[in-house]
């Protein structure tokens, strides 16, 4: 009896990862056609509300790069306790931007203005 219980417990332990991982796999299968997403956190270098473009400075150490992305009608802009517009962003602001690569380049899904210590 004890042996059966132990075998059953072992089976459950071994199967749990597959069961709990399953939804993630389903999501991956469902989004197989979608572009992979990217997240950048950096400083706004330039913003153009007319063309809906945003340039961020990112990088590692002293090796810095510019990331360019465009806003889509569905792009969500958020900030602590507010819903800013693109015109509210200015050079020097720190943002976290999530987006995906398309044929037209990097398109932002969500841009969050971060509150960073200024002193």
């Amino acid at each position, binding site marked *: 009896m004890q042996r059966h219980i132990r075998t059953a417990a072992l089976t459950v332990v071994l199967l749990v990862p597959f069961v709990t991982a399953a939804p993630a796999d389903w999501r991956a299968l469902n989004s197989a056609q979608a572009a992979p997403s990217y997240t950048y*956190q*950096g*400083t706004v*270098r330039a913003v153009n509300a007319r063309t809906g473009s945003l*340039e961020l*400075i*990112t*990088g*590692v*150490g*002293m*090796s*810095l*790069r*510019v990331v360019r992305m465009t806003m889509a009608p569905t792009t969500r802009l958020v900030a602590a306790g507010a819903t800013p517009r693109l015109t509210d962003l200015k*050079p*020097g602001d*720190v943002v976290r931007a999530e987006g995906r690569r398309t044929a037209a380049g990097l398109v932002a899904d969500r841009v969050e203005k*971060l509150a*960073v*210590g*200024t*002193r």
Partner: protein
Amino acid sequence: MTRPRGAAVLLLLLAGGGGCQKPVKPGDPLPGLSRAERDRFDHGKVVFDSVFTPETGLGPLFNATGCGECHENPAGGRGDEVEVHATAFHAPVCDPLAQEGGPVIQQHTTPALKQALGIDQEPFPPSATARAMRTSPVIFGRGLLDLVPDSVLLAYADPDDRNHDGVKGRPNRFVDGRIGRFGRKGFVPTLREFNAGAFAAEMSVTNPAQPTEEDVGGKPLPAGVDPAPDPEINQEQLDLTDDFVRFLAPPTPLKLGKDGRHGRDVFSQIGCATCHIPTLRTGYSPLPALNNREFAAYTDLLLHDMGTDLADICLGRATPADFRTEPLLDLRGAEHFLHDGRATTLEQAIELHGGEGSGARDRFKGLSAADRTALVAFLKSL
């Protein structure tokens, strides 16, 4: 009866001998590394001392062919190279010119890039508002500095000078908002990022942390000038180099004589120690050699306005006049001082302090010759 007493004396001698550590020389690893960590230090030194070629990832723009070209005598020490940095300051915003190749202006090109574009160095960015010269610092003790908690830096900060001592101090911020501490402007948050960024910015050796090559003045690289596939070093090479730098110990200060001990007191009395805080303590590390260690740092890792005479470029939240307090490590081996090496003596370096450092500078100028000599003797013990 005499035999047990003899054994006790032997035990005491052994115990005393165990507590007497050998002085750490420049280039030595931290005391207390495990065998495995010491192996990584040794293997990391091999990568650190490697000389890269275009075929192994060098360039096409670069300042040096390897880490050891600038941090030498011994590995991790200071070199005689001076490099060029540039940014654009449009107050209050600092543009690090990432769109024009970034703030580090590489002074050399590979033969292939020279042939393709006819240039010997990275073009100076047209948008730059200032140029800065930067000497190669010693990189001893950086693993310890990396582990000083941000909360300690913030506790030393006094941006509004609430204690009215004329010294403020505030942390710099990286482009993503995190508190910075490495580099002459205290821009880079962690040692790991500083090392990975140095591979890319100094040698144009791409790596897993920075897998893309820098362009030339905002224009893509010409085809065929960068033969090595990216990333040009792998994670293990990057990690080993990082461990080598992380495990480099700060050299043990020389034993102080009477003059030096008096100089140490003068150092505090005239206010040098307000920013050059003598000791800091690391936070938690899983490595015992780095965990909760008090060490001689002589820095607060904060930005201070050093006056218009020293001002050069902005970087992050650092204005042109802001510099991070330089850790006073291995001064005994230095022949040039300050961020650009303009001072050739310690006295000159102190007298060039301006802005928030002007109070200490003026008190230094008011010292007797004997007190000045004592202060310099103390600094030369570091």
